[in-house]
């Protein structure tokens, strides 16, 4: 057992309290004003701030590798409009430099998903950021990546989709066929296996969300229309103009992943990007996660994104939740990651100062009870 003492611990309410955190078998055992049990090793945080390991729920870490140029790009299978059968785990290299950046910034959980060149890009995965083999890094499934708007219609000249009409049509047809496939599986003569349709079944059965990149308000409304039609759970990615349709998003129970707030508006559809959107959407009752959109900006900049959100109107407590609890909830992983509470994975980051200041870098990053980054050493139990 490990006892972390003398830390200002981020509470679920969003403030900081001087608590002791007990860690055992990779999990958080207890948090509170408690005595250090006999036999526990002790890690003195020397008045540092202890926050949950940060979560970036929309990245291509490991899939679009850094420092390798074109050779490192395994994120867009731009050969067909719909590739739901693809799995990000088959393209992720745990040796990508970005994993080390993530740890150094206190990011312990990342979702990694295919790019937005295809209408249906494939299956994402939620990973811990330390590990040698991808199979040992998996926390859970993420869901299915989809994209509307400019990217899927411009990636493959001369081929469909070339318009927003066809983009929606491809998505609708895939979902309709997957449902038909499921219905026929009980038949006397079931259909041949189709891995793409099989991959869409967890979406249709609401086990995982459909994560749709959509920037313009009209594209977001198309996503909402399709989500209603097939009764799927919806998260909007990038979501430049989401604040313009905030009420409809709330009514549909849809969430938004915003970021990077420091991004350039390369495309026409990004004109409406508003760094004040996180504050406005949360106010309207729409759940928000902040993201680097790595490689749109580096995964190491996730705390900078939170700082920027504060600059544009978010409270510090809400900014912290936007990079911990809220993204965890979007992936239905709030029982594993995203807060400091008993029973959750011991993903803990000890910061040198209040979160989201430039010098408040991690002293120590712990993933499932093991120190994955930093110099901190626990003292052995007193004899």
């Amino acid at each position, binding site marked *: 057992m490990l006892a972390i003492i003398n830390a200002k611990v981020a509470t679920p309410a969003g403030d900081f309290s001087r608590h002791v955190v007990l860690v055992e078998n990779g999990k958080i055992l207890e948090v509170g004003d408690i005595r250090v049990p006999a036999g526990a090793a002790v890690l003195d945080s020397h008045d540092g701030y202890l926050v949950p390991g940060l979560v970036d729920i929309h990245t291509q870490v490991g899939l679009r590798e*850094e420092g390798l140029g074109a050779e490192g790009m395994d994120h867009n299978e731009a050969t067909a409009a719909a590739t739901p059968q693809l799995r990000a785990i088959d393209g992720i290299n745990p040796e990508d430099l*970005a994993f080390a950046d993530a740890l150094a910034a206190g990011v312990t959980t990342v979702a990694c998903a295919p790019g937005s060149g295809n209408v249906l890009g494939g299956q994402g995965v939620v990973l811990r950021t330390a590990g040698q083999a991808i199979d040992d890094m998996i926390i859970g499934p993420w869901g299915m990546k989809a994209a509307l708007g400019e990217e899927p219609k411009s990636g493959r000249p001369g081929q469909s989709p070339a318009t927003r009409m066809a983009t929606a049509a491809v998505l609708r047809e895939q979902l309709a066929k997957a449902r038909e496939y499921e219905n026929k599986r009980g038949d006397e003569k079931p259909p041949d296996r189709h891995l793409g349709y099989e991959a869409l079944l967890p979406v249709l059965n609401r086990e995982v969300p459909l994560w749709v990149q959509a920037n313009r308000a009209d594209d977001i409304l198309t996503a909402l229309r399709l989500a209603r039609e097939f009764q799927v759970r919806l998260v909007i990615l990038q979501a430049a103009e989401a604040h313009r349709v905030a009420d409809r998003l709330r009514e549909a129970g849809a969430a938004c992943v915003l970021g990077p707030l420091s991004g*350039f508006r390369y495309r*026409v559809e990004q004109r409406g990007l508003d760094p004040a959107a996180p504050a406005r959407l949360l106010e309207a009752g729409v759940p928000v996660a902040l993201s680097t959109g790595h490689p749109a*900006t580096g995964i190491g900049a996730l705390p900078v994104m939170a700082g920027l959100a504060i600059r544009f109107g978010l409270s510090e407590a809400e900014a912290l939740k936007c990079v911990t609890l809220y993204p965890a909830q979007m992936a239905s992983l709030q029982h594993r990651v995203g807060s400091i509470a008993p029973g959750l994975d011991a993903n803990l980051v000890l910061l040198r100062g209040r979160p*989201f200041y430039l*010098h408040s870098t991690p002293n120590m990053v712990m993933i499932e009870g093991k120190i994955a980054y930093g110099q901190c050493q626990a003292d052995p139990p007193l004899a």
Partner: protein
Amino acid sequence: MLLIKHARIMSGSGPAIDRGSVLVEGERVAAVGVSIPEPPGAVVLDAAGCTITPGLIDAHAHAGIWEEGFGREGVDVNESTDPVTPHLRALDAINPEDTGLGRALEGGVTAIWCAPGSSNIIGGQGVAMRTYGSSVDEMVLRHPCGVKAALGENPKRSYGSRQKSPATRMASAAILRETLVKAARYLEKQQGDKAPDRDLGMEALGRVLMRQEYLRVHAHRVDDILTALRLAREFNIRIVIEHATEAHKIADLLAREEVPVIIGPTLGIRGKVETRERSFATPGVCARAGVQVAIMTDHPIIPLQFLAICAGLAWAAGLPEEDALAAVTINPARILGIDQDFGSLEVGKVADLAIFGGHPFEPRTPVEATVVAGRVVYCREGGLLSC
């Protein structure tokens, strides 16, 4: 007259003043100090809780020639039809209505060097310009300003992928060398009895050969930086290393040869092999070795309005605060040749300044107001100042 009082002042010239005032008269700074008597009739801004810095300067950006929100149509940055285009002028492609320029003011950035991209060995002539204005000719601070060159991956990818030269680093250096030889010959002829036919590209390079302008060489890897230094010695020209990703490895050499570096963009990912060693520690290592360091956004790679954060991340990685400020104010002003009027808050200089609502480098700090030539051109809605 405009008096801004009760602010922390990081003037870039001498130590910071914890609670002081800046007096602006017309376009110029009239006084900076702890206590300045309020002149009758002056407009007074109470900036308690704020920090004033000189208007920030980004010495390497593509705002106005790479417009935001336009997709392909907004890109006028790379004339990739010929690897040698010294006759091109960024000035001719700048749209002052680019919203990226307007947003720069929201980040306290008042001046930039706008230049062609790096797909060509010699891309063309840059311009030092304001971010505020409606006519580019009135926004010019110095023109022409520097000639852009590029080594490393970009030109050889741009041309090599089309089976054109340069396809290797050897050819990139050879083309640059050959062009400079040609320019030297042109210069000789110009100074002779019989003037040569006009060649506008050679004239631009002539100014480089006469040491009136910098050759601004895009180089990330150490070997590319060394190639640039070799060519600079060969032709006795003044160069600046742009991007300078691996400059920390040869910081002593750069200091000895008095070659400035403009480091960045560092906030993004390491997209290329040549950016593999990218680190926010590089500016600190270079500054400690005595190299003149500036920090760039390379807008649009990082939007201009986040220049202060880029300086801040270098500060957090070991660059002293005053050097971080210099890297986005006086050092870029010197590189652009506009430091007699810009880059620090000193009596007599043009009153370009940024008023931050906290520490200027922290991501959470908003810019409360931006002043250009004595006029408040941006004031944050619902902010700390009533201007």
